[in-house]
């Protein structure tokens, strides 16, 4: 009986939402503001592909959408990741073990040497991916994930090493602050959060697309340090 009632309530709520929203236009078509006649509509997907490069200066269209047109959503994504990392840190609150990490069983010579050789290259590649996020495929999230996998490699190969947790925390907090600060500067200068207030420059140049590279570097550092801290914490618990 209770199941039936709850099902009916659910159906009623769903019908209400459907009725309330059935005339609201979503997605593709919207009245164009500014130029053109007021009745003219614009297809957003086509608009981003054709005008995105010129408007935001980012030749990677995905970046121009992720940070140019939908920057606030990206801030939300970064916040979700931050909350997940914080929650994990709270749940896995392990006391500092008295065991010296150097006691751990050392990895074999091949793994050790490979890890030492690959670690700087992986860091370099991750940095390349997020620095060139507005020009080539890639971006802050991908670069950060590559950097975090470099930290994972250190855990696999060089068991004695531990990450500098204070450094990670400082990098994470600073990059988050930079993201929000850039957005607030846009709000102060042009009246819109995350407004691209810097000159867009010429396409395909490293210093172009205004705030997008700055924010991508911040996101890359933030994601890298967050995921690296997760790996470090889990590995510490596993020891």
């Amino acid at each position, binding site marked *: 009986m209770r199941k039936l009632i709850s099902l009916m309530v659910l159906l009623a709520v769903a019908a209400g939402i459907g009725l309330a929203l059935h005339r609201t236009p979503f997605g593709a078509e919207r009245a164009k503001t500014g130029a053109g006649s007021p009745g003219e509509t614009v297809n957003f997907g086509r608009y981003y592909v054709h005008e995105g490069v010129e408007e935001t200066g980012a030749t*990677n269209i*995905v970046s121009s959408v992720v940070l140019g047109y939908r920057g606030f959503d990206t801030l939300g994504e970064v916040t979700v990741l931050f909350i997940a990392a914080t929650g994990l840190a709270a749940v896995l609150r392990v006391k500092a073990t008295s065991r010296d990490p150097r006691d751990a069983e050392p990895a074999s010579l091949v793994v050790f040497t490979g890890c030492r050789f690959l670690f700087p290259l992986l860091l370099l590649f991750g940095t390349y*991916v997020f620095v060139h996020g507005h020009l080539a*495929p*890639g*971006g802050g*999230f*991908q670069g950060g*994930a*590559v950097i*975090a*996998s470099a930290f*994972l490699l250190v*855990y696999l190969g060089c068991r004695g090493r531990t990450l500098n947790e204070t450094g990670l925390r400082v990098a994470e907090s600073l990059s988050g602050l930079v993201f929000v600060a850039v957005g607030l500067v846009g709000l102060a200068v042009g009246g819109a959060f995350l407004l691209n207030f810097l000159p867009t420059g010429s396409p395909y140049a490293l210093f172009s697309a205004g705030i997008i590279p700055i924010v991508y570097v911040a996101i890359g550092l933030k994601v890298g340090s967050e*995921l690296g801290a*997760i*790996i470090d914490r*889990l*590995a510490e*618990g*596993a020891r």
Partner: protein
Amino acid sequence: MTIFQALLILVMIAAAVFAARSRDLMNAVIACAMVSLMASIIFYFLQAPDVAMAEAAIGAGLTTAIFIFAINRTVRHEDDEKAD
């Protein structure tokens, strides 16, 4: 190229079925990593290199490591659950 993609998808489905049916969780995790790796290659062929990069780094790399850490702290074989 379509034959290659179909092959990738077949391997992906096989790995996914194996991951769901395996009683040894370590094997299941490795099969999951394989699914992610195949998905990332398919994404690359579908001209989505951004997604491919994220899938390879997070899906095949970090998630696998996190699962393995979790298995280290719990049980490896599903039948062991009752014994503990």
